[in-house]
């Protein structure tokens, strides 16, 4: 029998399908894992955005990872509360984002703070659009190196 901790690690190591440089643990979306009396592994996932189309793929990937870690019965639930926040992205997750040309989210505050260019590091950047290639990102451009880049929105 595989331990709950081992299964939890397997679920957390699953890559995000839209941002494959990040694992689910980097994003902070695996909320709980339990083994019930009859041996079923129950996993709670929270979506980044309610309409995020990756949610179902993530659930299927997690179920597959749990099975290949040795469990036969898996049930994946989606929980909405407490609501996911970009504060749950780990320091390691932020470093990976930056390394892959995506500005990590700033603190969750009422006004939009400037994103730092992930290529040249300049803070002289401007927001082009609040909405980007996935629900969690915005489009920015750097005035210093002139490169456009994605930034994860603070949420």
């Amino acid at each position, binding site marked *: 029998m595989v331990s709950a901790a081992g299964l939890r690690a397997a679920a957390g190591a699953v890559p995000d399908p839209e941002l494959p440089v990040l694992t689910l643990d980097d994003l902070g979306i695996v909320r709980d894992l339990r083994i019930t009396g009859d041996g079923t592994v129950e996993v709670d996932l929270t979506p980044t955005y309610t309409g995020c189309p990756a949610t179902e793929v993530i659930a299927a990937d997690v179920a597959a990872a749990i099975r290949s870690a040795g469990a036969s019965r898996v049930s994946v639930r989606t929980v*909405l509360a407490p609501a996911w926040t970009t504060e749950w992205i780990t320091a390691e997750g932020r470093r990976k984002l930056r390394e892959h040309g995506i500005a990590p989210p700033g603190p969750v505050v009422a006004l939009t703070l400037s994103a730092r260019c992930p290529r040249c590091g300049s803070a002289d950047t401007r927001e082009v659009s609040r909405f980007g290639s996935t629900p969690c990102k915005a489009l920015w451009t750097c005035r210093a190196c002139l490169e456009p880049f994605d930034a994860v929105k603070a949420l």
Partner: protein
Amino acid sequence: MTGPAHVLGLADDALVLAQRLGEWATRAPELEEDIALANIALDLLGQARTLLAHAGELDGTGRDADALAYLRDDREFRNVQLVEIPNGDFAVTMARLLVFSAYQHALYSALRHRPDSTLAGLAGKAVKEVAYHRDHATQWVLRLGDGTAESHERMQAALDRIWPYTDELFDPAPDAPVDPAFLRPEWTSHVDGVLAAATLRRPEPAWRSRGGRDGLHTEHLGHLLAEMQHLHRSHPGARW
């Protein structure tokens, strides 16, 4: 007590506006706007899925989100008429998004603290997304209203077009989890502030829409549903 009929109304508001906003895909004035409207539509669709599934549980029929979205006729939809009228030009789309997202922001802010844990969980999440929608519409209404003579005139005409449909959002609903009238002060404060800053006049229409929550709709909803539902109905049970 939260009634299934009102939850269905909130679900249908989100679903129908998601469908309308989706019509802008490949047709928006610029690429960034195309992406923005599709993103907003996707957020609304996500809310609709949760709300529809919840309505199906509450009403005891066990219908899932797909059954409710695709297998009801127009008279069974409970959305306000505001969300079903055609997109019009870009200004009409932004006028509607402003009033609707300001309403949803007030709604979800209040629902976060209600005992129904599904609604409260969704609201806690959706309110953060809707804040982005409201901000997006606000920026455009400011830019167009306080822009050129042409953009000002068209933004004002857009407000005049949608304003008769706004009162319906706040009509009394005995089974609503939050009394709609309670949402009006926050809505008015945001919308009036934007209109004033955008040099626009708050319309005073001579008539107002009624009845969406009772299944009474404009002729536009049937056409929207025909497009949205025909694939599912033509190929029942089809899978990718």
